[in-house]
């Protein structure tokens, strides 16, 4: 083999290299295009097309059943009115707090359940089934059951009494918003009283968080279980030799291994949470003073009850933007900014 054979191969084009750049592109990317093409097409229509449509509706004058896409005057008036409304502000507060609390509780609960089930030698399948079962039920009905349970005078408080716990929380009837910082914030915000709601944690939401976690912790557990099973046993053994207590092992060794699982859970439960509707409607409705109202209900009521299609659309655009604020930087860091 000598070097003088090579120039030839450069000059005299090989049959396979003679192909056009298009056919080479297709050969390289054909499968990708074939797979992703249809997906991108339908999602382009069903997601981005419909978002565009919704955005257009949100700046239109459309109220009532007749389609009216005339631009509003001023264009953003639907937004400014909605954003100033105490109810919508409460909704934004609620969904933010709900999502944070719910994700925390569901993930922690799911993780604990997964560890316990993973380590239980007996009845593993039974327990797994028990914890996963709530997930198979329809929100519309579980909401009712949880409303019963969180009815102060007849529900879980009776059990607490029986157990000798002398607390009678109001649960979903409690209108209290603790840690209201709206007053403090308004001294900072230029222009004064733009905040028309109490910015704190509505206690009534906690009951909803419990119900939602009950329903979805099993799903988190299932994913964690799959992850735990994938961790090599040597890791546990090594950690044990390093003197790690069980708790330390799971926190310092197992948890980092489960990070991809955690991401899956957070994204999936996060979107369930942000869109929550059925459960809240059936359980607490708007709640006292909109303590448990969420954008999902607002969108539904504005669109289909009030027939203010523009306001409903604007609310969902704001919901999307909220999601965007939280999720886009995350997605960017995870999938774009990081490795290539």
């Amino acid at each position: 083999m000598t070097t003088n054979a090579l120039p030839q191969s450069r000059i005299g084009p090989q049959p396979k290299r003679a192909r056009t750049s298009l056919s080479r592109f297709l050969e390289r990317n054909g499968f990708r295009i074939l797979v992703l093409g249809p997906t991108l097409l339908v999602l382009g229509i069903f997601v981005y097309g419909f978002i565009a449509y919704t955005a257009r509706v949100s700046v239109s004058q459309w109220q009532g059943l007749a389609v009216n896409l005339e631009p509003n005057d001023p264009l953003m008036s639907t937004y400014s009115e909605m954003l100033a409304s105490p109810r919508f502000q409460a909704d934004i507060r609620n969904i933010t707090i709900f999502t944070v609390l719910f994700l925390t509780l569901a993930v922690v609960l799911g993780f604990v359940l997964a560890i316990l089930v993973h380590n239980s030698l007996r009845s593993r399948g039974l327990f797994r089934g028990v914890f996963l079962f709530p997930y198979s039920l329809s929100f519309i009905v579980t909401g009712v059951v949880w409303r019963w349970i969180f009815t102060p005078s007849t529900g879980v408080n009776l059990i607490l009494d029986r157990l000798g716990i002398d607390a009678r929380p109001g649960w979903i009837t409690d209108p209290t918003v603790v840690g209201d910082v709206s007053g403090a914030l308004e001294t900072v915000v230029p222009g004064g009283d733009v905040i028309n709601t109490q910015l704190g944690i509505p206690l009534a939401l906690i009951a909803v968080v419990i119900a939602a976690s009950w329903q979805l912790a099993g799903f988190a557990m299932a994913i964690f279980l799959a992850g735990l099973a994938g961790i090599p046993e040597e890791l546990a053994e090594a950690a044990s030799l390093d003197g790690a207590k069980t708790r330390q092992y799971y926190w310092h060794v197992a948890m980092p291994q489960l990070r991809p699982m955690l991401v899956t859970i957070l994204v999936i439960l996060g979107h369930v949470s942000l869109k929550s509707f059925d459960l809240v409607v059936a359980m607490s409705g708007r709640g006292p003073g909109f303590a448990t109202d969420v954008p999902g209900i607002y969108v539904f009521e504005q669109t289909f009850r009030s027939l203010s299609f523009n306001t409903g659309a604007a609310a969902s655009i704001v919901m999307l933007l909220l999601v965007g604020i939280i999720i886009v930087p995350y997605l960017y860091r995870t999938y774009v900014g990081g490795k290539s």
Partner: protein
Amino acid sequence: MKAIPKTLSWKVLAALLALALTAAACGSDAETTTTEAEVENSESATDADDGDEPTAEDDGDEPTAEDDGDEPTEDATSSTGELEIFSWWTSGSEDTALQALISAFQAGAPNADIINGAVSGGGGANAQAVLATRIQGNDLPDTWQSGPGGRLTPYLEADVIRPVTEVYDDAGFRDTMPAGLIESLSVDGEIYAVATGAHRGNNLWYNKALLDGAGVDAPAGDYTNEQFLADLATLDAAGVTGLCLGANQAFAVDELFENILLGVVGPEGWAALRDGDRSWDDPEVREAAEIFGQVLDYVDPDASALTWDQAILRLADGTCAFNSMGDWAYGELINSGAVDNEDFGYVNQPGTDGVFMLVVDAFVVAKDTPNWDLAKVWLTEMGQPETQLEFNIAKGASPVRNDVDTSALPPYQQGAADALAADATALSIVHHGEPAFQTVMSEAVTIFAQTKDVEQFVQALASA
């Protein structure tokens, strides 16, 4: 550690197959048990699904398609084809009442089929959502449940319903139904719907034993808000929860306010507020808000966790003394085993004696329905005295005809039916307001219940 057994995928496949087989088995069962009216329809649907050609069956129930094409040739009378009716009555007494309407229709049009599209939930909210969506898609049922007044406005604005005045003329409804009611179903001289019955919205229910125990006299017809508040205070002092409220559903709180407001402004004031002849910034509205705020102080602490039906059951079992709710509560009380005039009593909301707060169910007809002939039968049969009677016995409401023999009705309904014929009427805003205003009012009420800020409240209403 074992590797994935190759057979595993087969097991999963087998499980799926088993599910599918179960489905098929259930499917054949289903065909034999569907009601007569649906048999044809569901069979064709199942067949089509089995054949995996779902697009083919669409033609069958799209109202725009000329259904009359294939069937009417066999039977030349106009009373064939399919009529799709749409309501939010799906269960219990409501379903029974709807079936009464359907049988009446089938008697009038024996060769026609009915597609009973019904969606329950949220006090008709789900159904309205579906309707709104179908209207956008230009795929309307032939006839659907609506209310009078502001409920008709969106349909008229969207130009999707047609006048049914000729039904009134042909069937002589004008002479037998209350003028006020017909008025509420009319716009610009045309009538757009036929009512199935009327509920009274302004009832104040009370638990007799609790009132007696606290030394409170049972309220009478001239009951005033002052007396009402005094009684609530007395009850409170006696350790009795004054007022049950199903505040889990916004409409129940709205209705409490609405009833108090009617008691303050009276029927004329009510009409003026509705028609926009009077501002919501009115002193009387403020006064009503004040009273509403005071009444709320006596509300059951559990209220936010209760639906309206649970609230009325609490009244029946003695948890609380009063409940302000429409007369659909009556059936709920009786079903719970409570005895009228023994366990519970009722009176008009304070200040509303001689006024009937109308909560009406009615049906409108799609403008472009190809089945107008069948729709006419549907509406005509609906307005017949026997149908009205049968429907309202089941529904717990009052016939809207003044020539119905009400002696067949239970005592409460007899009284209500008589009152409907005699009293002044006010059209409920909570149930029949224009959707946008109704939402604003509902939100304002929810906020007011916490803040008790009268000024903010009336401003919110006035600026709507």
